[in-house]
């Protein structure tokens, strides 16, 4: 059950609040969004709340990257072992990578510019939005939350920050893939060796192909949950301001 139903007179909404999450337009820097697409195709679109294409690009990246051994070759290139870099790359898959990679960056940049314009128009129109949704599965409402908590939980397990601000899909997706990356890269086995003091064994046990997915995944989870907490808080304030102005400005102060 929602506390709002559109009247067909609105042209744009700046946010949508449903049982599975709050989707919101806000101003974004197109270069920052393009950068996240470059770090990991799909992340730029996820930041823009274009979840289906974001998740599709993400899965595409994990699949084509691991089939072509791209991450492994990146590691070899960075440490100057170019012979091995050429050796591990699989030519059956490698060229599939480039067009989609470039598309993800370009498309997220372009979409950001468009959505920024839509946001300014929606902000000026300032139409009523749904702020409360209660269903048999979930309850979601506009609320103020602490950005620092979103960051801390995301650092502990990517996805928890998204759960904190009620973005169920991103949370499940991020946490699920983190399990895949951690398991196949042997990252936790390496952590185990680090604590036992054997750095060499820690290095040996890691699979570079899978391990290289992890830094971007954590970085994205932190950034996404932080910015969305800040923006959710701003949406809350703007909605409450509107509510108070509409309902509690009949009395006039007497001096």
């Amino acid at each position, binding site marked *: 059950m929602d506390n709002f139903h559109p009247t067909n007179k609105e042209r744009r909404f700046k946010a949508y609040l449903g049982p599975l999450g709050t989707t919101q337009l*806000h*101003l*974004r*820097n*197109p*270069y*920052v969004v393009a950068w*996240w697409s470059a*770090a990991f195709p799909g992340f730029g679109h996820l930041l823009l709340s274009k979840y289906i294409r974001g998740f599709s690009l993400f899965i595409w990246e994990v699949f084509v990257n691991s089939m072509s051994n791209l991450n492994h070759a*990146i*590691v070899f*290139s*960075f*440490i*100057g072992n170019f012979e091995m870099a050429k050796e591990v790359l699989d030519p059956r898959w490698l060229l599939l990578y480039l067009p989609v990679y470039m598309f993800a960056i370009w498309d997220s940049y372009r979409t950001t*510019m468009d959505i*920024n*314009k839509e946001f*300014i128009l929606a*902000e000026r129109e300032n139409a009523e939005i749904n702020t409360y949704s209660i269903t048999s599965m979930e309850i979601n409402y506009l*609320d*103020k939350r602490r950005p620092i908590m979103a960051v801390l939980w995301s650092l502990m397990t990517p996805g928890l920050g998204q759960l904190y601000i009620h973005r169920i899909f991103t949370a499940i997706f991020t946490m699920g893939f983190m399990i895949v990356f951690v398991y196949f890269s042997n*990252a936790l086995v*390496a*952590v185990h060796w*680090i604590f036992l003091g054997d*750095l*060499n064994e*820690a*290095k040996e046990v*890691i699979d*570079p192909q899978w*391990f*290289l997915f*992890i*830094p*971007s995944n*954590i*970085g*994205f989870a932190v*950034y996404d949950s*932080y*910015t969305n907490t*800040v923006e959710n808080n*701003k949406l*809350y*304030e703007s909605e*409450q*301001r509107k509510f*108070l*102005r509409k*309902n*509690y*400005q*009949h*009395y*006039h*102060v*007497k*001096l």
Partner: protein
Amino acid sequence: MQIFSSFEHSSYIELAITALEQIGIEKENILAVPLYNRIEERKLFDTLHRADGVSLFDTGAALGTAFSVIGTCFGFALAWGPIIWGLIGAIIGFLLGFIINYTFYKITRNKQRALKGKKSEVFLVINCPQEIVEQVEKILWENFALGVSKV
């Protein structure tokens, strides 16, 4: 009797208002004046090309991730291994991005004074009979009013 109070934006204002309505104060005797924050007002006029308010974090997160990936790669050739070098890279990248942004803001936004501490964001004025003034004040304080005064 008029009671003036100020609040931050949060559910507590609405809790206070509904509690006042429950003790019989009508809507017509409650005035809420949400203040537009000077800084937030200005943000709307930022260009399309810049996100607002969170930019101090933007470059830090981007460079942190980039340096973390690079640190991880080098880590495979260095003594401490990819995990530790990845973490070192993330910290260096984040700090670097933060410092770049911070310096940038210091130079470009020198004139804007930062507001510190709590900000008053909503004024709430209640018109009520003398007898219930204390009750009203109690409700306002219980819901974390920043300040209360009667005139």
